[in-house]
């Protein structure tokens, strides 16, 4: 049961990764593409980590996975914000 | 005794650290480290002379798993030359750099360069050689940029890029060797390496990389600006020692490690490039307007002579004739080292005293700086190859070997090169002595003139007398 759930979560994570990449390719402008990036980080990696945590079931491994996910989330939020702000400033100044 | 090998690397390295940590005492610490290193090099030379080649396994691991240091006659002689030239240039530099801040920048890099030179000559491991080449290249570049003029920085940048490309090619060759033979130890490779599709490309890559660093024609384009714009003591060791370090490696690889794989065609190619270097370098030196540029182009030419030996050595069967030729090659390299270092130091003095080094405006230098002019003349004697200089001896053996093997055309190149060298040296001396009369002044030799003078004497006189013991050493040590 847990195995199935874990597998489903992992696959869903992969699905969101792919959605993110497709969004990156299809979306028309920089800001919209940034949405694709944060979504892949948040949901893609999040679901992946959830699935792997269920699969591994060792407390320390789970915690380390969470730590990595948190790091990616923070980095992703910060860099998306920085890039958007950077682009926005260039727009307004040039 | 064998600890000397690691001592020769550790002493300048420790010196570099101490000069870095105690900038106020940098000069005295550096000179002390230099004297120690020179003593160690002398002891090693004596040791190799009496006991033959020496080796040291670092960390106690057998070569292959670990890295071995090795010294034979060739490397011991070059180490000795390095030590003497570096020491002389150090004494000179202690007067050349007067500000504390300059000294604090100069000495650590200087000793790191010395470390790299010694490490390179001693290393018995191909990958370790790559690291020492990089250490040598980076410290040389950093020193060359100390001139702090735009030209110096620009030349240093180009020097760095060329050096990096050279070491990358060398590393590519080393990778192939490791892929094919699973070892990096040069002594074991000498036993197992065979001519074939792995060694040829690997040797070609390593050689091209090293030739870039040695500045063999037509890969010499970076050398004149870099050597001409660096501070005088730095120019001296760049021209006298640093290019020779990579030449030593070519020699080691072609004559020693991969001797099996060397073909006559390849050796002739090196000879042709050497001939090109002799002619082109001498010609450019003759046309140079500045003394330092003249000296730098003369380095290009003098390196060419060394490569003329390759086709001859390839054609000579092992035996006394070949040994004599090898000895001639080495004596040529050593003499050039002393002569060129002395020349650059002397030029540095002229530049400092008169504010320029334009050849046309040297008028009266002989009266104002008689010792320095004499040093230039001595260096010139050695560069042209007049007796009793070591160069004369070296070129003599080149002629002998060329006629023995029937390759007389190299003789033509050598003769033309010597004539051109005579022309550019006498051009300088002609301007230096000038036509105007100057009031007589008492001859006084300043402290910074001594190193140049001593180097000149060594090149023009002592090396000519050193022939016999040198051959004995090479035979015993090789």
């Amino acid at each position, binding site marked *: 049961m847990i195995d199935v759930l874990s597998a489903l979560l992992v696959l869903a994570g992969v699905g969101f990764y792919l959605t993110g990449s497709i969004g*990156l390719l299809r979306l028309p402008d920089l800001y919209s593409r940034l949405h694709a990036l944060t979504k*892949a980080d948040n949901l893609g990696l999040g679901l992946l980590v959830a699935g792997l945590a269920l699969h591994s079931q060792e407390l320390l491994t789970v915690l380390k996975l969470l730590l990595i*996910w948190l790091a990616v989330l923070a*980095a992703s939020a*910060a860099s998306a914000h*920085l890039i958007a702000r950077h682009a926005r400033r260039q727009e307004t100044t040039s | 005794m064998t600890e000397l090998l690691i001592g020769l690397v550790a002493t300048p390295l420790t010196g570099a650290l101490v000069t870095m940590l105690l900038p106020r005492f940098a000069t005295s610490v550096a000179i002390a480290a230099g004297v120690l290193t020179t003593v160690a090099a002398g002891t090693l030379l004596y040791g190799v002379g009496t006991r033959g080649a020496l080796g040291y396994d670092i960390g106690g691991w057998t070569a292959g798993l670990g890295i071995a240091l090795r010294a034979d006659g060739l490397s011991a002689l070059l180490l000795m030359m390095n030590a003497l030239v570096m020491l002389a240039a150090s004494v000179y530099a202690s007067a050349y750099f007067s500000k504390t801040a300059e000294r604090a920048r100069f000495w650590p890099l200087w000793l790191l360069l010395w470390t790299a030179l010694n490490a390179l000559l001693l290393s018995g491991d191909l990958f370790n050689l790559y690291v020492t080449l990089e250490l040598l290249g980076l410290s040389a570049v950093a020193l060359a940029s100390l001139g702090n003029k735009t030209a110096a920085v620009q030349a240093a940048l180009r020097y760095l890029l060329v050096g990096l490309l050279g070491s990358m090619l060398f590393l590519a060759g080393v990778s192939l060797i490791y892929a094919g033979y699973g070892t990096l130890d040069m002594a074991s490779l000498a036993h197992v390496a065979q001519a074939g599709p792995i060694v040829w490309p690997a040797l070609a890559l390593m050689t091209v990389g090293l030739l870039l660093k040695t500045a063999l024609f037509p890969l010499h384009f970076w050398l004149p600006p870099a050597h001409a714009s660096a501070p005088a003591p730095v120019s001296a060791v760049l021209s006298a020692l640093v290019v020779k370090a990579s030449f030593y490696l070519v020699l080691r690889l072609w004559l020693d490690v991969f001797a099996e794989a060397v073909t006559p065609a390849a050796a002739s190619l090196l000879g042709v490039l050497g001939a090109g270097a002799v002619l082109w370098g001498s010609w450019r030196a003759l046309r140079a307007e500045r003394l330092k540029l003249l000296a730098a182009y003369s380095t290009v030419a003098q390196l060419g002579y060394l490569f003329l030996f390759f086709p001859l050595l390839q054609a000579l069967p092992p035996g006394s004739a070949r040994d004599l030729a090898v000895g001639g090659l080495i004596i040529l390299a050593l003499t050039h080292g002393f002569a060129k270092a002395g020349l650059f130091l002397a030029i540095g003095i002229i530049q400092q005293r008169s504010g320029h080094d334009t050849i046309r405006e040297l008028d009266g230098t002989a009266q104002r700086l008689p010792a320095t002019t004499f040093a230039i003349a001595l260096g010139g004697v050695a560069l042209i190859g007049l007796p009793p200089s070591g160069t004369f001896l070296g070129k003599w053996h080149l002629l002998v070997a060329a006629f023995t093997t029937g390759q007389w055309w190299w003789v033509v190149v050598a003769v033309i090169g010597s004539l051109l060298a005579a022309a550019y040296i006498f051009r300088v001396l002609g301007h230096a002595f000038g036509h105007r009369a100057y009031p007589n002044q008492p001859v006084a030799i300043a402290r910074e003139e001594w190193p140049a003078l001593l180097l000149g004497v060594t090149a023009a006189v002592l090396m000519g007398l050193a022939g016999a013991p040198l051959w004995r050493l090479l035979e015993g040590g090789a």
Partner: protein
Amino acid sequence: MSELLSVSALGVVFSLFLGLLRILRGPGAADRMLATQLIGTAGVGTLLLLSLLPGQQALMDVALILALLAAVAAAAFTGRQRRSRND
């Protein structure tokens, strides 16, 4: 299960590959930068998936480093240097 992990890893690598197309197409430097970020994230995902295979725990450390340094490049890209030498 290990089959699932490796197939998923392949899926994530494929999304990394798609991100490459955006890097190549640009058009702006910022677009490339953000696609590079996505490649980093996809790298983390791949490494985490593979790290649960036997004997591959070390990959989690590689993922950790990639995750911790993910923001450095974007900050260097967007950071503005002070104008003069005073602060």
